[in-house]
C-alpha cells in the first residue's frame, strides 16, 4: 500500500517498480495496480516468485516506511473505465486477477449500472487472491456474478467449475456476442490464448477482447 501517490490512474494500468542495490545495480519489473482510482491508497498485489529478483524482495524484505521507486501509471489499452460501459466480462487466471479486481472495485465505486461477470481460475482454493472480497461483491450486487474455476484441487462438494476453463463455460459467461460485451482476459499465456480463441470462435469480435499476459514468463 503506497500513501501519497499523486497521480491519477485507470483500472487495468500498471506501474514499474525499480530496486537499486548499494553498488548501483538495478532491477525493474512491472506490477498491475490492484486498487481502484477512487481508493485512498495505491495498492499493488505481488505474487512471490521463488526464483524472482524483485518479487521476493517486495514480499519478504520491504517494510512500511521504506522508500520505493515507481514509474507510471503505464498502459492505456487494457483499461476499463465506467464511461466505456458494458456488459463487462472479466476473465482472470492466477495473479491475472489483479487488474480485474481494480476494474471491479472501480465498478463498485461508480454508478454500478452495467452487468459484470467475473471468471477467476486458480490451482486451488488456497491460491485464490481476494476470494472473500469478490464473493462479497456478488452477494451485495445483483448485477455482479462471480465464478471460480479450480484446476488442480478442489474441496469435496465444490460446486464451481473444475479443471481448465473450456468453451461451454465461456459461452455461458460471456453471453451473446449481440450484447457486445467488453471482455478483459489476464493471466498466463496459455490461459489467455485459450480463452481468447474460444471467445473469437463463439463470435465475439476480436476488437472487444483485450488481453494482458503475465505471471512467470513462458508458462
Amino acid at each position, binding site marked *: 500500500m503506497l500513501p501519497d501517490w499523486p497521480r491519477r490512474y485507470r483500472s487495468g494500468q500498471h506501474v514499474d517498480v525499480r530496486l537499486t542495490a548499494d553498488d548501483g545495480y538495478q532491477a525493474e519489473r*512491472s506490477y498491475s495496480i490492484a486498487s481502484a482510482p477512487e481508493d485512498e491508497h495505491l495498492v499493488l498485489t505481488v505474487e512471490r516468485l521463488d526464483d524472482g529478483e524483485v518479487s521476493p524482495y517486495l514480499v519478504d524484505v520491504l517494510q512500511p516506511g521504506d522508500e520505493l521507486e515507481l514509474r507510471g501509471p503505464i498502459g492505456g489499452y487494457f483499461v476499463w473505465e465506467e464511461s466505456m460501459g458494458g456488459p463487462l466480462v472479466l476473465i482472470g487466471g492466477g495473479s491475472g486477477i489483479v487488474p480485474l479486481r481494480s476494474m471491479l472495485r472501480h465498478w463498485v465505486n461508480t454508478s454500478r449500472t452495467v452487468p459484470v461477470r467475473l471468471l477467476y481460475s486458480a490451482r486451488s482454493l488456497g491460491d485464490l487472491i481476494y476470494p472473500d472480497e469478490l464473493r462479497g461483491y456478488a452477494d451485495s450486487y445483483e448485477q455482479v456474478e462471480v465464478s471460480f474455476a479450480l484446476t488442480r484441487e478442489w474441496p469435496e462438494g465444490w460446486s464451481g467449475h473444475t479443471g481448465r476453463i473450456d468453451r461451454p463455460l465461456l459461452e455461458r459467461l460471456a453471453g451473446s456476442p449481440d450484447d457486445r460485451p467488453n471482455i478483459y482476459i489476464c493471466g498466463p499465456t496459455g490461459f489467455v*490464448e485459450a480463452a481468447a480463441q474460444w471467445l473469437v470462435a463463439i463470435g465475439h469480435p476480436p476488437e472487444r477482447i483485450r488481453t494482458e499476459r503475465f505471471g512467470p514468463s513462458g508458462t
Partner: protein
Amino acid sequence: MSPVSRGFTPKRRPTGEPSRLPPGQYWTTDFPVLSAGPTPHTPLDEWSFMIDGVVENPVSWPWQEFLALPAETIETDIHCVTKWSKQETSWKGVSLDTLLAGVDTSAEYITAWSDGGYTTNLALEDVTDGKAWVAYEYGGEPLEPEHGGPARLLVPHLYFWKSAKWVRGLTLTADDEPGFWENYGYHNHGDPWLEQRYQGD
C-alpha cells in the same frame, strides 16, 4: 538519482556479456508472449504482404511468392520493453532492403500494419541497410502464431513492440504517424540502449 533500496541484495546478477544487455533489462531463456488482443489465424492462401502508401506502384506478394524471395538468417539479441531480453535468437526472413529495392518513394517513415489491427511506426532509416526483416522462421521452425506467425517484422535494434507480429504490410508515409502502443504512451522511437520506453524518456 535512485534511492538505494534498503535490504536489496540481489544474489544473482545478469550472466552473459554485460555489454550486450541494455539498461534496465534482464536476460531470460524462455520466450514470453505479449499482445493486446486475440491471436489472429489468417490462412496462408489468404495471406499476402503489401507495400503501399507514398509509392509509384504498390507491390504485393502472396505467401508462396514471398517464400521465394531471397531470405537471410539472422542471429540477434532481442529486447522487450517489459524488461526481458533474449540472447542469440535465430530467425529466417526477407530483408526490408530486398522488399523495398524496387520501390520508388519520397517517404521517410513507414507504418507496419498487421492482422488484428496492430500498427507501429518506424523511420525508414531504422529499417534499411540491414536493420529489419520480415521473418517467418524462428529457431529453424515456422514461426508460431503466438509469436507472430506466419510472419512478423523483426527490428532487433529497437524494443520488440516495433517488431510487429502478424505483419501484412508496410505503408510508406511522408509524416511520422504514431502506431498502436505509440498512441498509448510508449516511446515513439524505442531505442533500448537509450532506454526509450515511454513518452518523455
